[in-house]
């Protein structure tokens, strides 16, 4: 999606504003102007009220570790990265994201506080990185 993630599978989406926000270091969700529901991953169509008026909201980059796994058998495009650890994070303010762990799997405890940042990958791609909090 735009430049998010190591491999790009989706060339087009209504969520086209995210690339600029990622470059500014912003972790962003969308909010329905009508029902005020927050969507992370962002989307431009509200499934609750079927409205299409959305606005961007930025998140703090703090959250809670929901679960994780270390991928040893990697799919195409990730062969050189394995093993890598994927974390699911419930972000403060609403929504959830998937990010790569910066650290050791052994140090993870589900339910722990984590911070989420954005890092550059080769070819101008970007990825969410998850760091356990002390």
């Amino acid at each position, binding site marked *: 999606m735009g430049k998010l993630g190591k*491999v790009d599978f989706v060339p087009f989406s209504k969520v086209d504003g995210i690339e600029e926000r990622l470059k500014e270091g912003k972790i962003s969700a969308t909010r329905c102007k009508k029902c005020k529901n927050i969507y992370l991953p962002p989307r431009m169509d509200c499934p609750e009220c079927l409205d299409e008026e959305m606005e961007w909201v930025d998140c703090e980059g703090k959250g809670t570790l929901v679960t994780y*796994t270390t991928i040893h*058998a990697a*799919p195409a*495009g990730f062969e050189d990265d394995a093993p890598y650890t*994927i974390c699911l994070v419930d972000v403060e303010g609403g929504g959830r994201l998937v990010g790569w762990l910066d650290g050791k799997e052994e140090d993870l405890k589900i339910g722990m506080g984590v911070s989420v940042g954005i890092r550059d990958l080769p070819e101008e791609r970007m990825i969410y990185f998850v760091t356990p909090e002390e």
Partner: protein
Amino acid sequence: MRTGVIGIGHGKFGRREVTVQELAFEPFREALDDCGLHQKDLDALIVGSSPEYHRQRSLSGVVAEYLGMNPKPTFLVEAACASSSAALATADAYIRAGIYDTVAVLGVQKMLELSTPEILALMGRVGDVQWESGFGTTFPGYYAMFAHRHMYEYGTTREQMAAVAVKNHHYGAKNPNAMFQKEITAEKALASRMVASPLTLYDCCANADGAACMIVTNEETAKKADTPIWMAGLGSATAPMSVLRREKLSEIPSAIDAARNAYKMAGIEPKDVDVADVHDCFTIAEILAYEDLGFCEKGGGGKMIEEGETHIGGRIPVNVDGGLKSKGHPVGATGVSMAVEAVKQLRGEAGERQVDGAEVALMHNVGGIGQYCFVNILRR
């Protein structure tokens, strides 16, 4: 108006050096032989399969031609790993509506004609490709995340997961159609290489080629059969495909909803189930299934396998055909494979794997990582 199963056929699962239509032919012929019917007696062929694994496009048309079914109608039903359970439910609806009297339901999948790079590329598109796949998620990776969450919430252990693999291989060793007809030990399972932590190789089912077929018909025709088996309850439901939009990750919510619908339609409770086939694509998935189907309380799945409650002789024997784990998982064939095994159990034809006096059998077939689930109940 009830729908009855009168014919069953099941091919050998594994690496098969045949085409997809040749694969389909074997159980189709067996199912027709089983009920003494001919193609002319069938009103339609409904195929369950996941098309992305095949080089051949327009699959059901090609299969219908090879099976000698022209000019009878055919079409493909797709719900990922639950495709042929969806095909079975579709056939049931056509028959109940009186549009068709007798239908062949075929689950078929040729998975091993793809090259390794093609398989790795497909593997990378299992999840939500917009928000998840760019981070290198995989099929085992999703269930691994469910496993870690279940371990955290309920104290489930790797040893309990390995016990599922040991049980299913134990029964699969007695199933001539299984891909892996061999026993394994917990030590071997636990020591096998890591795929996606905490799941090792022996926690995962294998891709396979395979096909299974059943002939279903209306009540009037079914009553003429020696031992008709009745479709008593059909339940299906969905859940978000994305793990980013799923509230709980220690259950398959679509399975809970599908089971509720199936039990209601059949007028039974979980305790009435005599034998079950559940979707053990990974060992943790079988533990989740025990809970989602109400065989035990939430969080009790690990203990249930540990105490032998799902072995033959236990409270509810589960996957005594070997499950996906030992049979292999030819995605589109799995749903009908489960149903064929259920019919064998209810007819008393399961041989060494027979659960004595089985009257009610349940099939739990999950599509993808739970975006679809079908729970079907058959009874004598």
